């Protein structure tokens, strides 16, 4: 992490960094990609080995002398570099396999370099083709299907129940880290409002403020149940705090609208019999984790197919330098 931090380049500076590299390493073209998990330099030069040496020296100057450089850096050339770029944009080289964000990040980095005049024939062709391959991989395989984190699984389920979340209201019971992350995931996908109830009211206010929501006294959560669509519970109580009778009481006032309970507490906060109520969908942490794990396994199984597509496409495209 410390090494990655040293080389991280903010998005607004990517274009300039690519441009600076041209003169710095005597390359004809350059693109710099910097994300939380990588900093990569793509170069096209008349004398590739010399450019690579100059880049190595530049980078080495930025790390302490006692740092174990070779373990942090690697370099690829020609076909291998093209293949690597295709793997990166396809999400095969990401921490979360198949994640979609990397595609946009690489595109942004390339656009910045293009805008700064740091690219020309070779890298333009390479990147444009790599984006095409990335799209093909994502369309023709299930590499980005399913959610691989508990928060995202919960959000996907909420969308399967309520469609767009812009009309959905969420109640968070217990202001712990897990419930905060799950609630944040719901808010990021458009959930309309958040109510936070916690035994410590101050902590509820803190989390509510952070999420632009409203704090509720812990003993008043039952009255809020009448209006919300999603309940995230993670209180750390040693016994169930939401009982079937509590939900039964609110049904009439809710006009029997669907209600989604996400129980991420251990021991569970919600009595399992709550899930027997017709309009209630109850998911506990084990089920959510199992769904996330299944998605991860499904994605792993897709790697071979993705690699096959990349190899076939690279052969077909006869990219420069390959």
């Amino acid at each position, binding site marked *: 992490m410390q090494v990655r931090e040293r080389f991280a380049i903010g998005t607004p500076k990517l274009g300039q960094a690519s441009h600076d590299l041209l003169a710095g390493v005597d390359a004809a073209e350059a693109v710099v990609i910097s994300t939380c998990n990588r900093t990569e330099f793509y170069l096209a030069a008349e004398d590739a080995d010399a450019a690579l040496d100059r880049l190595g020296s530049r980078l080495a100057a930025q790390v302490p002398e006692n740092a174990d450089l070779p373990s942090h850096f690697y370099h690829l050339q020609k076909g291998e570099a093209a293949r690597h770029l295709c793997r990166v944009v396809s999400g095969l080289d990401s921490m979360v396999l198949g994640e979609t964000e990397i595609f946009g990040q690489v595109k942004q980095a390339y656009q910045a370099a293009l805008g700064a005049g740091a690219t020309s024939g070779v890298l333009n062709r390479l990147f444009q083709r790599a984006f095409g391959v990335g799209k093909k991989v994502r369309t023709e395989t299930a590499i980005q299907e399913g959610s691989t984190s508990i928060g995202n699984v919960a959000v996907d*389920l909420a969308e399967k*129940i309520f*469609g767009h979340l812009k009309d959905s209201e969420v109640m968070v019971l217990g202001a712990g880290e897990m419930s905060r992350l799950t609630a944040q995931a719901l808010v990021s996908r458009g959930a309309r409002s958040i109510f936070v109830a916690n035994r410590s009211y101050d902590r509820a206010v803190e989390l509510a403020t952070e999420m632009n929501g409203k704090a509720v006294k812990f003993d008043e959560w039952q009255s809020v149940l009448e209006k919300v669509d999603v309940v995230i519970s993670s209180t750390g109580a040693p016994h169930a705090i939401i009982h079937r009778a509590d939900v039964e009481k609110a049904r009439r006032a809710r006009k029997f609208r669907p209600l989604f309970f996400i129980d991420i507490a251990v021991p569970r906060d919600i009595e399992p019999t709550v*899930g027997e109520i*017709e*309009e209630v969908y109850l*998911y506990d942490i084990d089920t959510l984790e199992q769904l996330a794990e299944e998605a991860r396994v499904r994605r792993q199984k897709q790697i071979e197919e993705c690699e096959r597509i990349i190899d076939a496409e690279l052969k077909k495209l006869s990219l420069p330098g390959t």
Partner: protein
Amino acid sequence: MDRWFLIAATLLAAVGGALGMLSVHHGSRSKWTVLWMAGAFLCQLGFLVLRGEARGACPLRDLGEILTYLAWSLTLFYLLVGPPYRISLLGVFTAPLIVVFQACALIPGILTAHPTRVLVSNAWGETHSATSVLAYGALALAAVAGVMFLVLDKQLKAHHLKSGLFRNLPPVHELRISLQRLLWLGGALLSVGIVAGFLMPHKQGTEGHFIAAVSVWLGYALLIGIMQVRGMTGRRLSLSAVGLFIGSLVVFAFV
């Protein structure tokens, strides 16, 4: 010629439904279903135009024509509701019902081979038949949406979320909204049909049809009333929509 239009419509719906089911089974969207169904709709229209010209009136004179008109209105509402609300899967669920209705119409003896010209027709009578069968189309589609809801609800409750069908089904909320709107639309059209039925001249021996029609209307009015005033769980609403539609087909026994 009219019969060929009906056969073509049945085949198009069958192929569209089968291909849709196949793509859903493989986990992808059934994006071509709407085109197959549009083709089926045009063939149904061709059949109804030819029969209408032969009759010189609304082609609702025998059970075969009624079943085809019902299939046509079901297809019409699917085309109106499915694509705009991105419920492409609705077509996959609707196609089998259309095939069943039209296959029944094609059974020898159900469709009059040589339709006779209607000499005396009554505007209220025509309105009654046309709007009632149109209402059945909307209510049939409500039942289809109900079946889709029940499938999705069962999968969500049992945490069975891996199937291609689950991935392609629209959200619970959207199915519920579509179901409610179709019930309102069907109920409104049925009300027009019932009023027109009261105003049309009555023949002897139509008491059974009258009682069945009023019972169906009361059933739907009660369902819509409870849904609107008290509220209902999606599962009960869906079961009621499916049950009422199946029960309401009794009306055709008295045609």
